[in-house]
């Protein structure tokens, strides 16, 4: 591209991205909302906070170290990995797939100690029931999925690169966005061991909340996970016709009151009613375009992704970019979660249950109610439990202001 064309393309992308951010950024949470000054002592006992801090600190550092090793290993692989092409008798794309899979395979091996350390630590705190061998087997089987996925991705990218050379990203980015949509859309059917809700009150609440949030009824399913874990969870999946809400049976085992479960339900419905899954497609697209472009740029010296030799470099750049984008995606994620909390408060009118839910979560999940800022920045896809409690209290103040003018 000539310089003028390049500048024009960059400008067009910047304008488009700006418009997209402008459309995706706002939430229902009032801009002038002031969170009351609560401290972590207000949401958990001192003993719990001490234990949770100890518990989470280890996991945090385990994770950070693991990521450092990931980057080191992939950097080494980007440097020397192309030599493994000698183990292939396949053509360009086949050899590329082999190099991609071997890169992930090597990575997989290096991550075993960190995974085992995490299990060991979690077992010490009774936060995991999974055995070491069981975990290793699951981890091993997971690798098959990773191999399948990277082969699909490389078939797309390298297929385009055979024709478009280093401009493959022009077709590659839309292809990945389309794949993301397909995956997000079909996710509800990929969930194993799910069944309909058996509690009529919960089903009725789901109908009511959906109506109040201005959306069509959304099917609620119970996912049986208590055999593997006792940590409580729920999530929203699918888009449009495939929308569903999944509640783990661990949330319904009596540790949470009905009102607290209803807050979770309203929160998940809010993810759908506020179109969070479509919005995450938008955010993904916003990152996929420059991301694929940067990968194309970085692999030029190895002959672009037309050649298998470029795959190790592409893998490194891809993982590094993902890691770099994580803090930004976390900010986006936390905004959506805050919006879902806010809409749930508006729907249930029950800040006491919301607060109870978050406090109980803190206890059950052995969560640090207010982790260090750097950790939130790097890892947290949800607001801290302390912030969520503070939002519930802020909502209470506002609603009291509204009903007693």
């Amino acid at each position, binding site marked *: 591209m000539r310089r003028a064309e390049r500048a024009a393309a960059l400008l067009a992308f910047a304008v488009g991205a700006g418009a997209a951010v402008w459309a995706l950024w706002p939430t229902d949470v009032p801009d002038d909302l002031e969170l009351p000054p609560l401290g972590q002592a207000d949401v958990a006992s001192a003993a719990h906070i001490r234990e949770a801090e100890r518990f989470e600190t280890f996991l945090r550092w385990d994770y950070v170290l693991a990521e450092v090793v990931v980057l080191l290993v992939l950097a080494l692989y980007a440097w020397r990995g192309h030599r*493994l092409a*000698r183990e*292939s*008798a*396949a*053509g360009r794309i086949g050899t590329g797939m082999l190099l991609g899979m*071997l890169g992930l395979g*090597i990575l997989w091996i290096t991550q075993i100690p960190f995974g085992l350390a995490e299990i060991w630590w979690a077992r010490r705190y009774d936060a995991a029931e999974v055995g070491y061998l069981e975990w290793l087997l699951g981890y091993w089987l997971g690798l098959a999925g990773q191999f*399948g996925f990277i082969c699909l991705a490389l078939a797309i990218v390298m297929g385009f690169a055979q024709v478009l050379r280093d401009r493959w990203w022009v077709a590659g980015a839309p292809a990945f966005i389309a794949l993301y949509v397909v995956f997000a859309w079909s996710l509800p059917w990929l969930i194993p061991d799910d069944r309909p809700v058996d509690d009529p009150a919960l089903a009725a609440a789901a109908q009511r909340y959906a109506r109040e949030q201005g959306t069509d009824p959304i099917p609620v399913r119970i996912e049986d996970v208590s055999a593997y874990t006792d940590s409580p969870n729920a999530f929203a999946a699918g888009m449009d016709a495939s929308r569903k809400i999944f509640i783990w049976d661990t949330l319904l085992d009596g540790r949470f009151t009905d009102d607290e479960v209803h807050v979770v339900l309203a929160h998940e419905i809010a993810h759908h009613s506020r179109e969070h899954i479509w919005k995450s497609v938008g955010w993904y697209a916003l990152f996929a375009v420059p991301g694929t472009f940067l990968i194309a740029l970085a692999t030029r010296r190895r002959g672009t992704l037309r050649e298998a030799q470029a795959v190790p470099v592409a893998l490194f750049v891809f993982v590094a970019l993902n890691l770099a984008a994580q803090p930004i995606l976390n900010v986006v994620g936390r905004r959506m979660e805050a919006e879902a909390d806010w809409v749930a408060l508006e729907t249930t009118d029950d800040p006491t249950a919301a607060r109870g839910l978050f406090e109980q979560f803190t206890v059950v999940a052995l969560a640090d109610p207010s982790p260090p800022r750097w950790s939130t920045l790097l890892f947290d896809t949800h607001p801290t439990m302390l912030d969520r409690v503070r939002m519930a209290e802020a909502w209470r103040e506002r609603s009291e202001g509204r009903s007693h003018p």
Partner: protein
Amino acid sequence: MSDRPVRLLVTDDLERSRLTVFFRLLLAIPHFFWLGVWTFGAFFSAIAQWFVTVLRGRPVPRLHEFHIGYIRYATHVGAYLALAANPFPGFLGAPGYPIDVEIASAERQGRLGALLRLLLALPALFMLVLISGGGPSGVGPYWVVSGGIVAAVAFLGWFASLVRGCMPRGLRNLAAYGLRYTAEVYAYVLLVTPVYPSTDPRLPAHAGAPPSHPVRLDVVDDRRRSRLTTFFRFFLLVPHLVWFSFWGVLALLIAVVQWFFTLVAGHPASPLHRFLAAWVRYQTHLFAFGFLIANPFPGFTGTPGYPVDLELPPPGRQRRLVTLFRLPLALPAFVVSGALGWLLYAAGIGGWFAALALGRMPSGLRDAGAHALRYSAQVNAYALLLTERYPFSGPPVEPSDDAPG
């Protein structure tokens, strides 16, 4: 393989008496009893031999002779049952039976090897079950029904011998291979020899060379195996298995079309022939990679040039009658192919551990697996109308200058 401790002697002329073939199993009843008695004696004398060898490093020569006689006798009975030989065997294991073994005994043996003999023999015993269902012993009828390649051969050979009055050379040689391996395992377990049993399929020249076949397997593999790709071998197949299933469905449809065409025209259609040839070749490459018969990651198109490759004939005239009954005619070959498939699995599993430890594939396993691949390719080529030549199941033979003097 003249350096092997067990040498196979084949003087059988393939002629079979239909009468004794028909009653073969019943005629063998006295031998079952006698073999049972002999097995009983061999079991206890082997324990004595084991103590002596572990303590002195030298087995007792008398017991050696007894065990060699036992192995010879068991081989004769096995050959009689598997229809690898015609005459009713004697009860003393005397030399001279049409399928016989010569066993070189070792007077000195390492004490550690002797001490751990049974433990070390486990992989070989595992192979033995696959090849001959454990071998002929006092529980003869058990052996007949327990599967294994020799049992499959006996089953098919029974029909063939009744119809034709002679045993097909391929089946006879396959049985002879199984009997030799059985004898090698017995000789190892009974401390006759410290040499580990080899699954090397090559037979001595006097077993009769296989007829030239239009479907040939070319092996230019140097037995080096990358430990990395060996470790992940199973999962590296993921993209191939997806591709394999798509291609397989298509190949099946094309084969049906080809069948009609060949039936009408008297010769296969060239483009379809090319397509099916590429499919059979791809299958060979893929299985060679998957079962560690070759090292590099194969391509997806079945293009020639892989270290374990297939030579396939061009389309030629085919008799319409043979075409019409192609599938029923192929049925026996599929049975043998299924039995040989176990050999492939054994080569893959055994080879996986060996290649991880040594970085090389043992030649016995590699060649045994290659033989199974060759036969499977011949069966596929026959079923998919690439050739009307019937598959030949016999293992390869040594060049004739290596014949026993």
